[in-house]
């Protein structure tokens, strides 16, 4: 029993470590003073100012539009790529998968300066377009990795079966295969979207001409001191993500009970549970 208490304390301490900065941000977003050192009373002024701060609103607009377009494009390219890769012979498949790993294994800073070097070499002006191209580039591999397993799980001859019944390859893809792999596509899109919203390093090197995203704004503000409006904005974003995840989780739970699929029963081995 004592060891159970120690475990609880341990989990609590790690969570405290992970959440302390977030709590600080949220608390100071309601601070009446601009300081992050002392508490001057509750206020919503930063939330009001947030919507009048043109620079932050512009950065938010660029962040969200790049994330939406980039993850949509990456999802389409990545899904078709996964389909093609599934049907490749052994060695081209291995080569392509190794290629796919380059941007994942390469440090962000190298990906960033590599794209910068190329855009500069071909004289492409840095801005919205270059940042968008960069985001599509780093998002595609993650889409492929989340869609590929879904193709592997497809029954081997499902496409032939559909075509035997008179479907054209295109029709078979959209009516038979697509619904089966949809969960992987949705996951891929969500990963791509999140990576894009949170990206700093690659955007930092591939943008210019006054086009920034929230991360770049925060980075350039960090030296002068962060405006509390940013705290207010991230509190709002955090709360919306939290609600979104709760809704998704609740829906998934409801779906699984409706379909009668209970979760795999977990049988704690005697002794192992308290070990």
């Amino acid at each position: 029993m004592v060891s159970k208490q120690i475990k609880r304390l341990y989990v609590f301490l790690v969570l405290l470590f992970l959440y302390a900065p977030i709590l600080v941000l949220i608390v100071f977003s309601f601070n009446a003073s601009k300081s992050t050192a002392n508490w001057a009373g509750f206020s919503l002024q930063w939330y009001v100012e947030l919507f009048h701060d043109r620079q932050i609103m512009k950065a938010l607009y660029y962040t969200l539009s790049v994330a939406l377009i980039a993850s949509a494009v990456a999802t389409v390219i990545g899904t078709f790529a996964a389909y093609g890769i599934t049907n490749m012979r052994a060695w081209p498949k291995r080569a392509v998968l190794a290629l796919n790993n380059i941007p994942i294994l390469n440090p962000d800073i190298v990906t960033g300066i590599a794209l910068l070097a190329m855009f500069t070499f071909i004289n492409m002006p840095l801005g919205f377009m270059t940042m968008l191209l960069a985001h599509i580039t780093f998002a595609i591999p993650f889409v492929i990795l989340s869609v590929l397993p879904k193709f592997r799980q497809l029954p081997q001859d499902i496409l032939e079966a559909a075509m035997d019944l008179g479907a054209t390859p295109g029709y078979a893809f959209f009516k038979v295969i697509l619904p089966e792999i949809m969960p992987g596509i949705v996951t891929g899109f969500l990963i791509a979207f999140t990576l894009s919203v949170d990206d700093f390093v690659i955007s930092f090197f591939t943008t210019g001409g006054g086009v920034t995203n929230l991360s770049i704004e925060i980075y350039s503000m960090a030296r002068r001191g962060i405006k509390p409006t940013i705290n207010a904005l991230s509190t709002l974003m955090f709360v919306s993500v939290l609600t979104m995840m709760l809704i998704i989780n609740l829906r998934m739970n409801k779906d699984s009970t409706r379909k009668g699929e209970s979760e795999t029963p977990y049988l704690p081995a005697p002794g192992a549970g308290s070990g």
Partner: protein
Amino acid sequence: MLRRFSASPYLLWTVLFILVPVFMVLFYSLFSPAPGGGYALDLEGYRKFADPLYLEVLWRSIVIALKSTLLCLLVGYPLALILSRIEPRYQKILVMLIILPMWMNFLLRTYAWIPILGRNGLINSLLGSLGVAPLNLLFNENAVLLGMVYNFLPFMVLPIYTVLMKIDRQLIEAAEDLGADRLVIFRRIVFPLSIPGLISGIMMVFMPAVSTFVISDLLGGSQITLIGNLIKDQFQTVYDWNFGSAISIILMVMILLSMSILNRYDEREGGTSMW
């Protein structure tokens, strides 16, 4: 037709935006603009890096990344172990609690340590009320280390947790039936089977830690120069692309080498990495 060509847009994209840019970095590391126009071979970047001043930066980056990987391992492994053994309904919530902080902008989360660690920060005012003189917690190497562990801990916990969950309970039961105690079970069964997750975790922490410049910028207060800072400066302030590209190539080769060594070990263990 669709099946054969559906990977082509992706392959084209990868060549244009991944292979060509990496090649450009290699090119800039070997050549620089010649006075009379065109480019001339220039190995100055690599020669410059051999300077003890820069080798020290590389060494410092490797050491601090190794330290943060080790700390993540020491904190993360017990956490993953606890997570894998609690009741499933708490399990889901706790895993979500560990992922959730990653949904808040990572620059902001890192920045939020400043009001906690600063001279007038939370920790120092707590200590002050106990009569302890303020400590210098910020803008030193330990602060950077803390920022790394804070940002990358989930990358260590999640892959280890995933492999721990896949361990067949019956193996543990069999060992118990044969009279093994908990320590032996851990040493002979649980730990060896968790090595693939451990390796993914090490990669996913070491790689971003060794190449970061944001954490050292924010929490090191420009006191700590890491290899990432060095690269960033060459492209953002000094404009020595030849040198910056040479460092990037060295960093890339170093990371790819260590990954392939770790991967080989992983394959020998018969495991699959997280991806």
